């Protein structure tokens, strides 16, 4: 059993290979943190661009970054809330995360950024919100932050 099953979070060297900075600057890209073999393939079938690969229903998914258009179909259906859309825009990092709590933040709000362990690592600004009623209860929220935090921040807390 891998060590992340004891901790409940991934270390930086356990995450999937990162998309290149060039790719991140081009447009949004899906980044999946789902290393364990579990019987689920919701993301594969949601993707219209063959960007998510899976050998069988139990295998972990793999994103082909070249094919990903950043359409966010997969992030809407993932039951593990394990998909994040990453992007570098105007030198800033942007992460789109699923959010199922109240209150739902609004564009322009400042939020506390949390890493995989739940520690506050900085603050960010909300740049886009898909309201929960448009996605069966799961809001999607884009938060702008320091570019170096793209692979560290995985949640936020509304102040």
């Amino acid at each position, binding site marked *: 059993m891998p060590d992340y099953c004891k901790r409940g979070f991934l270390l930086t060297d356990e995450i999937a290979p990162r998309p290149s900075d060039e790719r991140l600057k081009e447009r949004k890209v899906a980044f999946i943190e789902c290393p364990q*073999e579990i019987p689920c393939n919701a993301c594969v079938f*949601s993707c219209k661009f063959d960007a998510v690969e899976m050998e069988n229903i139990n295998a972990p998914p793999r994103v082909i970054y070249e094919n990903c258009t950043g359409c966010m179909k997969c992030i809407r259906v993932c*039951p593990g809330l394990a998909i994040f859309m990453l992007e570098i825009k105007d030198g800033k990092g942007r992460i789109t995360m699923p959010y199922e709590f*109240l209150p739902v933040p609004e564009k322009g709000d400042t939020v506390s950024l949390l890493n995989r362990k739940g520690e506050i690592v900085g603050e960010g600004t909300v740049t886009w919100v898909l309201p929960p009623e448009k996605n069966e209860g799961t809001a999607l929220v884009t938060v702008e932050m320091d570019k170096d935090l793209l692979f560290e921040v995985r949640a936020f807390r509304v102040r």
Partner: protein
Amino acid sequence: MGRLQEHPVVQFRRGKKVTIYFDGKPMEAYEGETVAAALYANGVRIFSRSFKYHRPRGFFCAIGKCSSCMMEVDGIPNVRTCKVYVRDGMQIRSQNSYPDVNNDILGVFDRLDFMFPHGFHYKKFIRPSFLRLFFVNSMRKFTGLGNFPKEEIKERGREETLECDIAIIGAGPAGLSSAIYAGELGADICLMDENPRVGGQLVKQTHRFFGSAEHGAGTRGIKIAENLEKKVREFDNVNISLNTGVFGIYDGTIGAVKDNTLIEIKPKKIIIATGAYERTLIFENNDLPGVYGAGGVQTLMNVYGVKPGDTGLIVGSGNVGLILTYQLLQAGVDVAGIVEAMPVIGGYFVHAAKVRRLGIPIYTSHTIKKAYGSKRVEGAQIVALDDKWQEVPGSERDISCDFICISVGLSPTHELLYQAGAEMRFVPELGGFVPVRNRYMETSREGVYVAGDAAGIEEASTAMIEGRIAGLDSAIKLGYGDKEAEEMRDKFVSDLEEMRRGPFGARILKGLEKVVV
């Protein structure tokens, strides 16, 4: 008071406001709520007193599988308050306590336990012999639960006999799937459930489901329940009988009760999809009000919108414990941590990651040692375990919490299978006693099928596929359907095999080897 007004995922549609009376005290309730939920929302925590020592008991399972919420309702004793719905003017009284359940003077027996060891009535209070009758009569006053109704019940019971092709017991994910697939083939079906609504435990699963995209992965459990209900109600040949408790299967004939009607059902095939009940765990004070089943808390919170407390401690890090933690946070309830006896997290990593990134600690290789409190949980003590599952001395630590959720697994509800005459085996990998069956879910008793958690504890996604297989096969055996139906049935069998191929399925497969013939 204790009711949730807003929730990120669920919209609580509460009925008309009514007043119920608990031990004479008026309380606010809403139509559609169970008595237990309404009492809980009004701050009632002690629901009953234990039989002998009069220890306070709170609610536990919230779905009618335990007996800790029994009270007198409108003069009828020993009613499970988690199963009856409020009505304006309802009179609810606590039983087995004096003067009331909160301040029961007989609770002193708990301190005098040394005087009443097991079987004491054979050895003590028997001499002098001329006083023996007096002693016996006095002791009898303290025994039994509840009082006989004061008024004679005038209403007469009725009897009814039904015939159908397939009787399905339990309208959860497995039973509903059976009904839909067998109904589609044209079989005449009687679908029964003891609850007033279909959906089983899906109605409290507010999270999105894992599984295969073809079988609804990514959809919330509550939505799956709605979809299945809509589908099953489309069939005229599926007769849905709710509030119907099946109490026995006698040589292929089913006995059931609905209100005051005794129903005799003579089916050609039976599908038993009775689900599972929650296990509990042994530790000091594990019966204190505030120690709840994880599923019970889900029912209270996600179905009735009642807040279980302010800070919870979760015992067990299987998927139920992890999901419940997330759901508590969604309802604005704090979670002090998750305790797991195994050295690794039991459930899916992604479920753990969801709560971990919100700062909830997961204590692996730890267990709960005791709960603090006298009338309700006021805290807990946890302790580390070494690699031989022994407590590490000096590693005790106190956790501040006002309720504790036990999510240490489920056991199949197997009673009807036994009674139907199916060969049963104890398979720990599947959660307990499960029937021997073939790959189409037919048990050793011909014509009796099993599906869902009753066949072995697994996910709702697999329960639905098992239900389809049982529904299809039983209908095919009765002459419904054609080659296409057989192909569909076989495809579902291979879908199931495919889903179980991963590491989480390995344990299930090991268990199935012992029962699938």
